C-alpha cells in the first residue's frame, strides 16, 4: 500500500463531538490544496462525521483505519 505523505497531524484523541471536526476544519485551511492531513480520534461517532464533513466540504477521505480505540483518517484537501 502506498504511503500517503501527511502535511499535518491533528490529535483529537479524547475529544468528543464536534471538536474532531472543528479542529479538522481549522487545520485543513493551513495546508495547500492537494496536500493531506491526518486526524487521530477516539470518538466512535467520528467515523460517520468525518465522512459527512468530507462530503459537505468536497475534501477527499483517502484512508480510514482503526487501531484499537484510535481511528485514523487521512484527508486530502481539494
Amino acid at each position, binding site marked *: 500500500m502506498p504511503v500517503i505523505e501527511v502535511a499535518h497531524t491533528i490529535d483529537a484523541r479524547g475529544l468528543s463531538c*464536534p*471538536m474532531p471536526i*472543528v479542529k479538522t476544519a481549522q487545520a485543513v485551511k493551513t495546508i495547500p490544496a492537494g496536500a493531506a492531513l491526518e486526524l487521530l480520534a477516539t470518538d466512535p461517532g467520528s467515523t460517520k462525521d468525518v465522512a459527512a464533513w468530507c462530503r459537505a466540504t468536497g475534501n477527499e477521505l483517502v484512508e480510514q483505519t482503526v487501531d484499537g480505540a484510535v481511528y485514523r483518517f487521512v484527508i486530502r484537501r481539494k
Partner: protein
Amino acid sequence: MTTTTLAPFDPLAEAIAAVDGLPEVTDTALPAPADDGQVKTKDLLIIDYSGDLEKVWASLILASTGAAMGVRTRVFVTFWGLQVFVKDSKRITGENWMQKMMSAMQRPGISHRKLSKMNFLGMGPWMMGRLAKQYGVASPKELLEAAQALGVEFIPCQMTMDMFGLKPEDMIDGMSEPAGAATVIGLMTENSTPLFI
C-alpha cells in the same frame, strides 16, 4: 386492408424552417455542469432564545459544526440568549434598577449558565462541567471561541439590548451589528435553514 402512414404534419416546424438567418441547430450537447460531488447547501440560521446551559451548549455545537462544514452560519441572539453573550467579567448590567436587578438575579455571561432542570443551586451545572471534562466534551466557552474562529456571525437583538439596558461594550468582542426581527425573517425566507433554540 392497407394502411398508409401519413407524413407528420408540423406547420410550426415548416414555418421555422422557412425563415432564413436562424442559427443552425447543432446536436452538440451542452457541457455538463461540473460535478464536484458537493451538495449545494443552504445557510444556517440559529435563533438563540434561551439562556439555559443545555440549550446554549447544543446551539453552539451546531453553530461551530455548521461553520466547520463550510455552511454560512449566523446566530441571532435574543431575550435570554443575549445574556449569554455579555462578557463573563460583567456582573451587573443595565441602567435602571429593574435591569440591574435582572442581571443580579441571573448572572450574565457564557460561563455562568444554569440548567433549566436539576440546577440545584449550581450543583447540576458543576456536575455537567465535570462530566464534560471527563468525556472530552468542549465547554460552551470553548465552542464559542471555535465558532468565532470559524466565522460564525453572532447577531445581537437590538430590542433585547434596549430592554435589558445592554451597551455594545457589555457584549463579547466580535459580535455583528445589532439587528431586528425583519432581518431574521428575511434570512429565514431567503436561503437559511432556521433553528429556534
